[in-house]
């Protein structure tokens, strides 16, 4: 059931997930970003109120006009903001590595979108962030390019982060890092829910399964404010209609249906890359838990993670069938 409405306040709203916005593909009479028309914003809020949806506003780098702020504040919501607009952000998206040093990240929930190479190159900054933030979400932007030969490299990267977490935990700060601590706390899948629990409203007044579908091709909408929400084959976006994922225990995996649609051509089927990466993270979480236990470090509500002998559950699919 739908629970969240994401409203992109501008076609240059900050990306907080796997996709990259492509603003140049959207001709704008202003020559720059297209701000959501005020009447569309108001109608979106009314839609959310009638459907009992929690709103998440996604901000652009530029400040919003005052009248927008007034409308936004008329409803309970979450603000996802880029660093340039950090004030009152509920979730801060770090758009430049340099911004990791600023005061506003202190005890904040932050998101970094980066390739594995960028992460590796900036690992000291990530370690530093772990000492400041309450929670850090790292979003990999190069999942599609992942090759099996890189498994070892990603394992090493996560091991480095795992060691950094242990050092922070020793200080008594139980910081969360999505790639490693989410799996410790979850007992079932916690996927992104695009099209199932979450839907996105774009500045053009149309609905999308998630922002990535809007930026990828604005014609692939799921209805509009004018004509109503129309998510076709919605059952296929749910976990019980995902033959590989419904048997999987990499609970922290976002199960990105946009990446699925792009890489396997079917929204309910994950790619080999997504599965392998999620399982490397799952196994690294298991190792982290073992390290914590060895050091006498305790995090509330953690759960045992069983040992498995595969990285891509597709290879075990015949057993589940």
């Amino acid at each position, binding site marked *: 059931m739908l629970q969240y409405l994401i409203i992109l306040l501008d076609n240059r709203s900050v990306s907080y997930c796997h996709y990259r916005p492509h603003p140049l593909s959207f001709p704008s009479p202003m020559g720059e970003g297209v701000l959501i028309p005020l009447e569309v914003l108001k109608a979106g809020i009314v839609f959310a109120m009638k459907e009992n949806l929690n709103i998440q506003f996604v901000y652009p780098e530029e400040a919003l006009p005052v009248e927008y702020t007034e409308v936004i504040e008329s409803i309970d919501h979450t603000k996802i903001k880029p660093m340039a607009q950090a004030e009152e952000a509920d979730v801060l998206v770090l758009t430049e590595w340099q911004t990791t040093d600023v005061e506003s990240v202190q005890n904040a929930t932050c998101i970094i979108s980066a390739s594995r190479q960028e992460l590796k190159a900036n690992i000291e900054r990530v370690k530093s962030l772990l000492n400041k933030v309450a929670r850090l979400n790292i979003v990999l932007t190069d999942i599609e390019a992942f090759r099996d030969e890189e498994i070892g490299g990603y394992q090493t990267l996560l091991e480095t982060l795992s060691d950094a977490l242990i050092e922070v935990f020793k200080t008594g700060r139980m910081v969360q890092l999505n790639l490693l601590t989410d799996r410790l706390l979850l007992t079932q899948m916690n996927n992104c829910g695009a099209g199932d629990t979450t839907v996105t409203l774009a500045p053009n007044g149309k609905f999308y399964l998630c922002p990535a579908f809007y930026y990828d091709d604005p014609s692939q909408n799921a209805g509009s404010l004018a004509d109503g929400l129309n998510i076709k*084959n919605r059952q*296929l976006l749910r976990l019980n209609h995902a*033959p590989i994922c419904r048997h999987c225990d990499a609970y922290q995996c976002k199960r990105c249906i946009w990446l699925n649609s792009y*890489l396997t*051509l079917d929204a*309910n089927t994950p790619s080999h890359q997504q599965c392998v990466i999620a399982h490397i993270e799952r196994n690294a979480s298991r190792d982290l838990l073992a390290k914590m236990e060895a050091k006498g470090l305790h995090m509330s509500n953690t759960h045992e993670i069983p040992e498995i002998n595969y990285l891509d559950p597709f290879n075990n*699919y015949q057993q589940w*069938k």
Partner: protein
Amino acid sequence: MKEMIKENTILWKDGTSKSITFIVTKDCQLACKYCYLVGKNTQERMSWEEAKEAIDYILGHEEEFQEESVIWDFIGGEPFLEIDLIDKICDYLKTEMYRRNHHWFNSYRFSFSTNGINYHTEKVQRFIEKNHNHLSIGITIDGTQRKHDLNRIWKTPGMEEGIQPKPEEEQGSYKDVVRNIPLWLEQFPGAGTKVTISSADIPYIKESVLHLYSLGIKEVNINCVFEAVWHEGDDRLFEQQLTELADAIIDGRLYEEYACSFFQEHIGKPMDHEHDNQNWCGAGMMLAVDAAGMFYPCTRFAQYSLRSKPAWIIGNVHDGIDKNKLRPFLTLDRCTQSIEECINCEVASGCAWCQGENYDAADTHTVYQRATAICKMHKARVRANNYYWNKLFRKLELQDYEEQKRKSNHKTCDL
């Protein structure tokens, strides 16, 4: 008792072999009205260079094709329009499988589904003679002349420009096909034909199956098209035709020598959610390659087969197969792609689907939305099928009883 009933032929190697389809041409002499190939054309003919690249890729990646056996399938349009290319491909396949010591060398077949028009030509006959022991050829003849000619008409020059002939200008192909049936059956005595039923064909089903039997074709594989072409009342008429056909087969004892795939003992039963959850269709297990060197999970996913969706390309002869694009096919099961009504259907078994049609008719880009246009036709088939087996088994039981009684009387007399 069952030994008295001819059964449908079991697929070669129990259907476990790899099927690799060469779409050698998208052209055909005919323009059958029910044909799902909406993009047939004269331009897309496979070149030898493209065919060779495809073969080199497939045989050069033995680890990706571990099935024990292979069926090299040739399809069109009409494959025998490209007999010179096919002959060259088959020669190369044989040579290369031998040269590479490939595990398919002693376990392969060449398979054709043809409209039969060129069957008698010298080139086709020479090819048959050369490869006979490894050949399966099916000629499509749709039944009586009036049924066959209703749909299987010659292409006219204007059709490529979208100009349809007037009804009086339509020319059926029955006579051009039926003349080759005796030669075909002489060369392949056990061969079966494939009959397609669309809405307009229903009144001629009984006469057509019996006609094909009279031509000496002992196995008639017949199915309704999967597309949403059915009209109100078609199911009742269909059921009536099949019931009359059942009477004719049983009363004439034709079941002893002939088979019709409409009548199968085990269809029309409920299916278990867990144990009967396998996919119907083999798309994804197969591989098709076209003139552009593109790979598809089956020929139905090539663009010329699709009305409203883009081709589902899984790779090409240069870059190989993108396994990600095969994953949706290899994880398909019955329940995930079916609506509740189908999952809980009391006559579910034997209800077929075509993954390509599912994709083409789906609301989104997916192979996980089962098209249900044939639902009422399947239910009608099940009713007629139940009638057939109840009547046939009762007849055989009574025969058996009479036979036992006769033997027992003999014994009494002997005493």
